């Protein structure tokens, strides 16, 4: 279980991760919290848009698109 942390934009399709820290600005943190994405939340990476587009994740059955820059600021741990 102890693995080095990655950022959300580095996660391949279909991989489950646990959010470790969200290093975005306050506004983005709040917006993510509204969609029930906090530290500790389990996410499944679903797909990525090409050429630096957003990543699509599933958070508790809800699908959320997160811009690549933001995803880069979300540290996650890959689950086995």
């Amino acid at each position, binding site marked *: *279980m102890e693995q080095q942390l990655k950022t959300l934009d580095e996660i391949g399709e*279909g*991989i*489950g991760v*646990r959010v470790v820290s969200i290093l*975005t*600005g306050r*506004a*983005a943190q709040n*917006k*993510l919290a509204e*969609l029930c994405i*906090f530290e*500790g*939340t*389990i996410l*499944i990476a679903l*797909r990525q*848009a*090409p*050429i*630096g*587009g*957003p990543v*699509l994740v*599933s958070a*508790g*059955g*809800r*699908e*959320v*698109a*997160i*811009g*690549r*820059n*933001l995803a880069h600021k979300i540290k996650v741990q890959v*689950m*086995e």
Partner: protein
Amino acid sequence: MRFVLVGQPNCGKSTLFNQVCGYKAETGNFTGTTVTFTESRVRLVGDIVDLVDLPGTYSLEGSNPAEKEVFRYLLNHSYDCIINVLDASHLSLGLAMTVELLELQRPMIVVLNMVDEADHLGMRVDINKLSETLGVPVVPMIARIGRGVKEVFLTALRTARLKNTPHRIRYSQRLEDAIAALSAFIDPQRSDMAVDAAAIKLLESDPLITELFQARQPEAIQATERVRSDLAQVDTGEQVFRLERHEAAQEIAGRVILQGTRKLTLRDKLDNYLLHPIWGYLFLLIVLYLFFQGVFAFGGLIEGPLMAWFAELETLIISHLPPGGIASQLAVGLVQGISGGLGIVLPYLVPFLFGLGLLEDVGYLPRIAFLVDAFMHRIGLHGAAIVPFILGFGCNVPSIMATRTLEDKRERFIAGALSTLVPCAARLAVVFGLVAFYLGPLAALLIYVFVLFVIAITGRILSRLLPEDIPGLILEIPPYRVPTVRAVFQKTWFRVKEFIVEAWPILIAGSVFLALLNALNLSQFVDIIFRPFTWLLGLPSQVGTTLLFGILRKELSLVMLGQALGSMDFSQVLTPVQMITYTIFVIFYMPCLATLVVIRKELGTRSMWAIMGLSLVIATVTALLARGVSSLIF
């Protein structure tokens, strides 16, 4: 032997209960509240067990009758084992109550129901790890098909016989200190529950426990007040425990959920195409093409007859008034204002907004945002800002309205300013009527490419001038839905009404005002005002008036051009260079009056002035550029 089923609504508790109901000997409704629960006598491998199905609740906090009743039952009745049923696909939600139940420190097992559904969602729960973390047995089950039901009761039986009491999950040190401090004041002989559990509930101001202690141990209530004020959390102290329980639940869920493969749903299959790196964009282009085709086909169908009818009306009115007089000119202005509004609203605004509402309700708009986010970032916006742009090609009015979906003020301004540069249907008329007609379709296409280029450059410059951390896209991508016509119509009407009420009256007033200028022969003064621009761009000074009309409605500039220059054959009075220069200037200078009104309402007066100024600068610079480049060609 008595087992109690506890769990959240829809966790499958009652399904489990009904699975064993075949053995039902008696059921009883417990009275006292509107909330009832059922007890059943079950024969299990030689043992007779009473099974109690408590109402589904999200917690034991006592904030509603069901919670209160469940908690009261757990306090006042004798039972041998709690069977806590969890929905495995919503594990962290259910675990919050598990953490709360553990505090009661009574024999307990956890049942993970719907493990198949969780599996479907790509979540496999590590049963052993969960059992280890919670300190109670955990049994997987699919109650719907009866799998695991027998194991549930065997495990409960064993746990009840062993009288294994679990440990509760620890809170943060600060809260544990408070719990310990308060526990010292509680007499275990006079409590129905574990001392620390009572302390937690007292600190949480649980109504049931507070009532109980007021009667039996009033000194504990006083101690609670003191401990709580020591916590300096008099207001939030009650919430702190709940928050920590939820955190603990999330943490546990995070530790025990394993990754499985997610099965494909219809939505996934659709998204595999619609959000595909290649097919997704192809489909987007097709959808947009059909969208515009539909709108323009509808618009053409309506606009022709509508305008013809208004032209007849105009002649009719003029024939009844003294010819050439002020009255007839004002009447014409009035009719043109009314018809102008109708000409925008009915043919273009209504189908545009209807189509948008349709795309929105189907769930496609957020997917467009997903696809174009990367491109939009290059002009300082994010994917959600694409909607104003798409709409802008029809009419800038709805595109300004659509900036409402953006949260950030800066973003709204940039999106609003840029979308006023998008050539709307009216400007399309100028491009087609002047450039495409006299210089060929290729020239018109080049103008469109140039316009998009200008928009992109402007976006880059604006986002540099207004630097700020772009918040980035965070957008829920909803499931696909079949839209209801009623909802789409309501949405359309709501937006159309705004145009009718806010912008149209000003359009009519402006039209009458221009008619007055004409009637009083003041148009040469208008030409003088516009002279700096027309001189700079090498245009005949008479086009000044047409530019003023263009503010009213962009295609009026083309209509008035013939009048101003005294010929409807523009090739006789304008050189190709002048045509291109004039068209570029008309496209960019000044959003039309209706758009300005909406900008003022949506983005504020200052933004309106800023966008007006910006558009004049862009129009002058680009028209000069067009003049220079095209004079090299022609």
